[in-house]
């Protein structure tokens, strides 16, 4: 089975982040955000290729404004990598697959 992308909500966010046994990259996005749509297929590819190494999850900021506020998201897409339950890296803005993999190299 290929790497699945988990949709996180206010309810399951904490438990998913804390129970992850690998780094988890959370994509804060929204339906109305063009650049978010551009990186969605790239994140799917990374989820497939890096299955077991890094997990990919998404937060729709329309449905979870509390999470966006908690992590002080002011621009999307914002990607936050959580390691052992703590934010370890933050990337703001859309970027290509190669740049993204470079930025994630410490986790993969």
């Amino acid at each position, binding site marked *: 089975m290929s790497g699945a992308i988990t949709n996180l909500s206010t309810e399951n966010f904490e438990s998913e982040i804390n129970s992850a046994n690998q780094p988890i990259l959370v994509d804060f996005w*929204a339906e*109305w*955000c*063009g*650049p*978010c*749509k*551009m*990186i969605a297929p*790239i994140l799917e590819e990374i989820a497939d290729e890096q299955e077991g190494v890094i997990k990919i999850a998404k937060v729709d*900021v*329309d449905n979870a404004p509390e999470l*966006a506020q908690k992590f*002080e*998201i*002011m*621009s*999307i*897409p*914002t990607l936050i990598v959580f390691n052992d339950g703590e934010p370890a890296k933050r990337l*703001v*803005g*859309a*970027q*290509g*697959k*190669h*740049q993204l993999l470079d930025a994630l190299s410490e986790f993969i």
Partner: protein
Amino acid sequence: MSDSHQTVVIIGSGPAGLTAAIYTARAELNPLVIEGEPSSTGDQPGGQLMLTTEVENFPGFPEGILGPQLMADMKAQAEKFGATFSTRKVTKVDLTTKPFEIWIGNPDENSPTHTADAVIISTGAQSVMLEVEGEKRLLGHGLSTCATCDGFFFKDKKIAVVGGGDSAIEEATFLTKFASEVTVIHRRNELRASKIMQKRAHENPKINFLWDSEVTEIFGSNSVEAVKIRNTKTLEETELDLEGIFIAIGHKPNTSLFIDKLSIDNLGYIKTEPQSTKTNIEGVFACGDVQDHKYRQAITAAGSGCMAAIDAEHWLENRQS
């Protein structure tokens, strides 16, 4: 010659590039579109319309159409006729050889990634930044270049838009959906924006104007808190408290790949012959915002993309005979 030889390579995939792709694909030239890589600044696949919402002035859509949807439709139309796409960024070109040579990825590789008989350049333009203290540090922390992406995070906040053209006024109007107050900060005492956009802005009770003013510094520890404003006439400096600032002061052409390789005018745009998309190198054509600092509309870009496709087709035919 590299394995990946193409008759036509199109660099860039906004309205100009995709229209060129539709026309060259229908002419059975099997174009390859090197569409760029995702970014949030204006050089992404689909071009600047990917950062907009409703497009109201593209003919054929009386109800308007979303920018990203229009671009997805143009791409689908090009693909339908056989255009192929590479979601990469061109890193180097050599236009002194025939066929032309194009690199993606490492520009120091010995052999190019693609070669092409004809090249159509449609790399567009991207937002100009203010280049003031605090700007880089606060990008994504209250400072934004994409109102449609980030407006949502400024609910009931006091914000500003810098600029006086169509994109600034469109952003200001859009942002009133979220913000409590939007101040348009403009260097002059009148707007460059189209009459309809101006009217909408003037009638909007949430929008106010700060004329003859430029932002010289942006303050904030973790996110934007205030800006320093200088009056362009009196040179008097004041501070304005706000929680968000959107930059829409204009665009610059994406021509860094072509400096010293093609004739470029003093504003940085690729020079084309009048009534044509021909550059100073035979077989290299330019269309859309990369060669147009006057009109810069989706429809004019699409029109010039069509011209480039026809110019390229004629050039290829005459060269073969």
